[in-house]
């Protein structure tokens, strides 16, 4: 059982919404989602919004995927927001100290 990913783009922004379980089974889907922008690669000037509003569960592989996105989106220059995480998931993100790497809103 794994989650579902939907992607929407506008001019400068890509929103990736994850519903259900965000785990290692989503690896290739998630990668495809953020690589769809620009000319096939990951666009470093873009803003990425990861909407976890519908996410029920997140595991360490999912954290790894967020790190991968961050690196491909320009590492320290990356503009990534993680939004709508419910309290349990927020706690997991904070345990990993992700508030220092991503804007968690």
């Amino acid at each position, binding site marked *: 059982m794994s989650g579902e990913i939907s992607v929407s783009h506008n001019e400068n922004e890509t929103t990736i919404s994850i519903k259900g379980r965000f785990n*290692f089974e989503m690896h290739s889907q998630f990668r495809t989602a953020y690589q769809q922008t620009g000319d096939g690669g990951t666009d470093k000037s873009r803003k990425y919004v990861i909407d976890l509003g519908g996410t029920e*569960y997140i*595991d*360490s*592989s999912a*954290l*790894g*995927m967020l*790190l*991968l996105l961050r*690196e491909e989106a320009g590492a320290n220059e990356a503009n990534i927001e993680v939004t709508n995480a419910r309290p*349990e998931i927020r*706690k*997991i993100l*904070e*345990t*990993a*100290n992700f508030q*220092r*790497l991503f804007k968690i809103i």
Partner: protein
Amino acid sequence: MNILIVDDDRINSTILSRLLARDGHQVLTASNGVDGVACFKKEQPDLVLMDVRMPKMNGYKAARRIKDMSVDRFVPIIFLTAVTDEEGLSACIEAGGDDFLTKPFNRTILQAKINAMRRIQELDTALRRKTFELERHQENLHQEMEVGNHLFTNIVRAGNLQDAPCLRYSTSPMSVFNGDLLIASYNPAGGLHIMLGDFTGHGLSAAVGALPLSELFYGMTAQGFSIGDLAEEINAKLYTVMPTWITCAACLIEVDYRQKVLTIWNGGLPDVLIADSSGKIVHRVASTHFAFGTIGSDPHLRKVEILEMQDDFRVFLYSDGLIEANNSEGAMFGQKRLENHFDGSIKPADLLDRIREANDQYRGETKQSDDTSILEIDCAKAGEEPPGGRQQTTRKDIPASDWQVSFSFSATTLRTVDPLPTIINAVMSLQAPTGHRERIYTILAELFSNALDHGLLGLDTKTKKTPEGFVEYYSQREKRLAALEHGEIKLHLCHKPLGSEQNSSGPMVRGGEIAIRLEDSGPGFNPNDVHSSLESNLGHGGRGIALVQSLCTRLDYHGCGNVAEAIYNWTHQ
């Protein structure tokens, strides 16, 4: 295709042969079932056209034989029949036939049926090939998992985890082997380093990462490096060698039973919980760091939590698999359910088992979705010797000889690096007599930290007398060290062999004497503070000097108390 016609009717057989040959097929013929089976066996054709009624052996029987002979590939058999009744046709299929062709033959239908069979045959071949590949992959994967498992098990076994009397733990892996790494090892001063690591993913990726991690853990611990040093090195290594998305959430703990200090570094693991004899949580150490391998460098990475250790403390370390265990409804065990155990109603000694039972019960028959580990450190047993004695790194004993060595450290050096492990290692590689390593390490470490903490940084041991002061002491130390601009520490070591005895092969050395002189540029000690007895010195701090005194043959302070001279004698054990 290579097609075999089995038919006793010569005219039929000839007509078919011609039709097939015209379409480019190679044709073989046999005139009865027995010959047909023999020919099939010899020529291995791709397809068989089989008459039903024939002398010696009929078509049904021959078809069964042929099917029995070709279990490893799909050989289509098309029955040639004059009958059109349902019973006759179903008998053909039951005998193993794949299709039938009614006489007289129509060329188009014959071609269509042969093509259809060819397609099925191609599908069958592809399927068999894929199955074979899958099986081979499965086999490879299994073998690689075995290798991983072997490595992982040996890495874990290499440590003193099983031996340390103060540790109890339980791990349950979700896949072939555990992605949680639980290792422990004694440092040269007899302190215990413990690490719980939880790698992203399970299986091979974890085993691969466990290699460099455990090498650094064991190596640096044996050399006397601190938890902060370990954290920094392990992070740098994992960041360099592992892919971005693989990280290792980890917690490092040093249990120093002599100084009664717990040093904790938590990067990405759930809160470390510390309970006392009331069975309630008295301390909690949350993750303040990234998991190993998340980022390349972080100025705060060395920062550790220092706690004064009480004998009734029990420290609980666990991986997120414990709190994220799902029940049959998909709900999580959760932090709250875990912490409910610490309401004071459970005897501290039973906490570990009760938590474990509650977790197993909660999960019931639900499939485990993550590795689960929980470890307890019973501080009351922290000073107990492991059953086999502490594991000494196997280094050859060097015969006692004459040598001298001097070190001098400026404020800049002291501010930026901890020179102690380097000094110790230099001394240990010169003369590290078995059974004395730990003591020599302790003497050097105590004298050195006295010179630095009190001599140069002007810290007062008395501050450590209350639990609040204890924390204050270490935070002051950090601040003052960072701001240190002047000062110097000089260390001089002089070793000479002792007690030689004459025997047939010349003088036999029985041991040696190490004279240690440590001088700091600080204002010095009050000798009365220094010469306090070991017994009266078991408060919240300041055990250091008394400890050194009890280990050395002599300990004197000179100058204004800024020069310490210690003599340590050793004999072969």
